[in-house]
């Protein structure tokens, strides 16, 4: 009942990312009898579609579930593309009424697809997130701090991550969208950062720090991956407006099939009966790439029915609407689009489409071993903490303050919660600092002996930790008020006392604040998202259901 085409995309159609999306291609209307063809691109998520066509042991998942609500069966074909960009001509010509895109790609494609009503994109299915499949590589730099005011290379498929990192940098970097970021990164004088697939990143960095040999780039190293930034790069399926209007029942049935296919893939993967050789043939065009296919699958995370509903709910933290709106704002700032573009949101009732789903919940378990994460952060030096920081939000307070009312700190709490959602694979460290002016007066003016000094250091650490705990409680209250679900295992408490003074050290003592402003800023709580990718013991296994 299904047919599969593996088409080597025309090289001309793969010319470039933004340029490829902007080339002139013929537009044809879809008809009611247009065949349902699901596109596949070389990502881990498409293993689900490929597996759904497997009929070796009996009727395939697609055969079993591609029926309308009135029971009419219909054919579903699949078609492989070598890249996201290669789909556009087929989409515009209605060879495939569906297209696989990312959130940022939808905005980039808009001038082609929204030019006529028939090809307007309607998002209908969210495959899930990149969770380790993509990596940020840096050359001659050790942390994301260096991205501020610098430049980063990306292709359109990973643009969402570049936009997010740019918004979290203290000074926005230049974003260069290119066809092949890895190749561009290898050129002399290229931008110091690039976003590439993790396997390509391993080549560029030679698994550690690139030497210039065997395809690596001298001085290149992995900075972070989407293991930390695991709510940024998302894969979705859009359908043409004219097809959706003519065949809504087929679109609904296709989405229902995909929901079931995701659930059954998970079950079959657990039972180790997924044929990755065949999947590699369909998705990557070569059955010998079985191991690559497995790696691609392990680098993505699906979201289940509950995640589908959350994605379609505009007010949710990482909804389609939130991602597109934030992405477009950043794209305008980066000069990638001239102005915000109206895009339709998901319109289907996913709850009703999930009737066949065995487990409608998405079981949330703790993602982190909180104690191990706390210990790992406490063992870091100030420089290591700074180097591993992906994003941060700072709040200030009054001397000896212990309460943090939402009315005053709501904006900062919301910002911190947003970052905890974006970087759900990073630890959210609530790092509290105490003022050291009183300590300095005691040591240098009142002649405190060392035992008295240590007692004060301990007292100030206790004060700062109590403050961090109060902030944590307030943050959780805020998340409840906003309707956010927050993984409390993601939060660690780090009372730093006076060990990381703003002005650094003067002969082993905190340098005294030079201005009243610096004194005020020394009393601070920093919400810090810390990448812990090298600390395997910090993570608990991904959710199973």
């Amino acid at each position, binding site marked *: 009942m299904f047919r599969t085409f593996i088409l080597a995309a025309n090289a001309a159609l793969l010319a470039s990312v933004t340029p490829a999306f902007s080339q002139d291609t013929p537009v044809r209307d879809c008809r009611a009898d247009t065949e349902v063809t699901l596109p596949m691109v070389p990502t881990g998520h498409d293993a689900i579609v490929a597996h759904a066509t497997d009929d070796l042991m009996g009727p395939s998942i697609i055969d079993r579930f591609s029926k309308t609500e009135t029971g009419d069966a219909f054919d579903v074909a699949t078609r492989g593309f070598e890249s996201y960009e290669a789909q556009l001509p087929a989409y515009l010509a209605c060879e495939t009424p569906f297209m696989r895109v990312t959130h940022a790609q939808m905005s980039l494609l808009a001038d082609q697809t929204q030019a006529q009503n028939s090809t307007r994109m309607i998002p209908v299915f969210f495959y899930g997130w990149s969770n380790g499949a993509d990596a940020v590589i840096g050359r001659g730099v050790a942390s994301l701090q260096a991205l501020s005011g610098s430049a980063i290379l990306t292709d359109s498929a990973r643009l969402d991550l570049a936009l997010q990192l740019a918004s979290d940098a203290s000074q926005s970097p230049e974003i260069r969208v290119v066809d092949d970021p890895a190749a561009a990164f290898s050129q002399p004088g290229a931008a110091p950062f690039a976003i590439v697939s993790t396997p390509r990143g391993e080549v560029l960095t030679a698994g550690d720090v690139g030497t210039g040999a065997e395809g690596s780039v001298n001085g290149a190293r992995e900075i972070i991956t989407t293991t930390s930034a695991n709510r940024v790069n998302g894969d979705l399926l859009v359908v043409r407006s004219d097809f959706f209007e003519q065949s809504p029942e087929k679109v609904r049935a296709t989405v229902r099939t995909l929901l079931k296919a995701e659930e059954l893939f998970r079950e079959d993967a657990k039972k180790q009966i997924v044929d990755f050789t065949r999947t590699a043939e369909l998705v990557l065009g070569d059955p010998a790439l079985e191991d690559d296919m497995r790696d691609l699958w392990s680098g993505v995370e699906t979201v289940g029915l509950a995640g589908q509903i959350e994605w379609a709910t505009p007010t949710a933290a990482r909804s389609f609407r939130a991602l597109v709106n934030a992405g477009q704002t950043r794209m305008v700032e980066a000069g990638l689009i001239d102005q915000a573009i109206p895009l339709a949101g998901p319109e289907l009732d996913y709850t009703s489409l999930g009737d066949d789903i065995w487990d409608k919940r998405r079981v949330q378990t703790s993602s982190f071993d909180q104690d191990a994460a706390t210990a790992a952060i406490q063992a870091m030096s100030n420089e290591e903490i700074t180097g591993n920081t992906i994003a941060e939000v700072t709040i200030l307070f009054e001397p000896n303050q212990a309460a943090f009312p939402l009315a005053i700190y709501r904006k900062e709490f919301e910002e911190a919660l947003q970052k905890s959602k974006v970087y759900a694979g990073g630890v959210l460290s609530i790092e509290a600092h105490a003022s050291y002016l009183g300590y*300095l007066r005691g040591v240098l003016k009142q002649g405190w002996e060392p035992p008295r000094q240590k007692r004060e250091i301990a007292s100030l650490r206790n004060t700062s930790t109590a403050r961090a705990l109060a902030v944590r409680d307030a943050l959780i209250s805020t998340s409840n008020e906003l309707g956010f679900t927050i993984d409390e295992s993601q939060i660690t408490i780090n009372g730093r006392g006076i060990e990381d003074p703003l002005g650094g050290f003067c002969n*082993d003592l905190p340098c005294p*604040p030079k201005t009243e402003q610096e004194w005020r800023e020394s009393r601070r709580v920093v919400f810090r998202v810390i990448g812990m990718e090298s600390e395997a013991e910090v993570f608990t296994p991904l959710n199973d259901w």
Partner: protein
Amino acid sequence: MNITKYRHLSLALASSLALAGCFGEEEDNSGSAVSRADLPDVAVSRLGQSVWPPISLDQDLPFASVGTTPFAENNMIVLDMSGSMGEPDCSGDYANRSEAAKQALFAWLSANPGDNVGLVSFSKGNIELNSPLGRGESHSTNVVNSIKSLEPKDGTPLLSAMTIARDELEKQAARQGGLGAYRMIVITDGEASRGQNPAPLVREIADNPSNMIELHTIGFCIGGNHALNDPGRVFYTSATSPEDLRAGLDATQGEANSFDASTISFEELSQ
């Protein structure tokens, strides 16, 4: 920057001279501290470079993040009930040092029901962890009864007893994530047995800026050159004025409530 890192020289010399005549110390027992000129301020810059308590100390103990009382105050008493504690001198109005020590402890214990308290003692040749850290009426009663039962006799294994107390405090610190307060309160006349000089342990604890154990001595005329009467490392309280103990345990300052423009420069702060 003109920072006076070694500010204790004159004060320490004066202190030594004042106390030197009170109690004669054998060279081996003196636990002599290093000269004051070697005692810098606590290196705050080193706080982030080491982890205390050692993480590997007790891996199966829960961290403070899951503990119920992460800010608990912990007092580990090391009680010297060696033979010399039966002497009457330096005991004020009490019959001997042993009685003075017991009364000081009873007064202090009755006033501090909220803190965790533990007891290590040595008497009659035995070193014993009489009570691990704990709190509550029953626990306090046990501690008091243990103290009452001790009699001054035999040697002074100060180093061994203090090591047990240190270990107890570090286990508790692991449970509390290093938060709260950790005090080792040594009640002694300082006359250590051969090989039991506590100076190395005092230095190990006091000279590590990350180690948050406070060392307190309730002493019986311990000389100023003794490791347990070293103001650069230890809080010293005379056993004849036990009421000073509580005040000595409590004092902290907190954060400065104002920014005084007259103290904004490091040079001025250093004068």
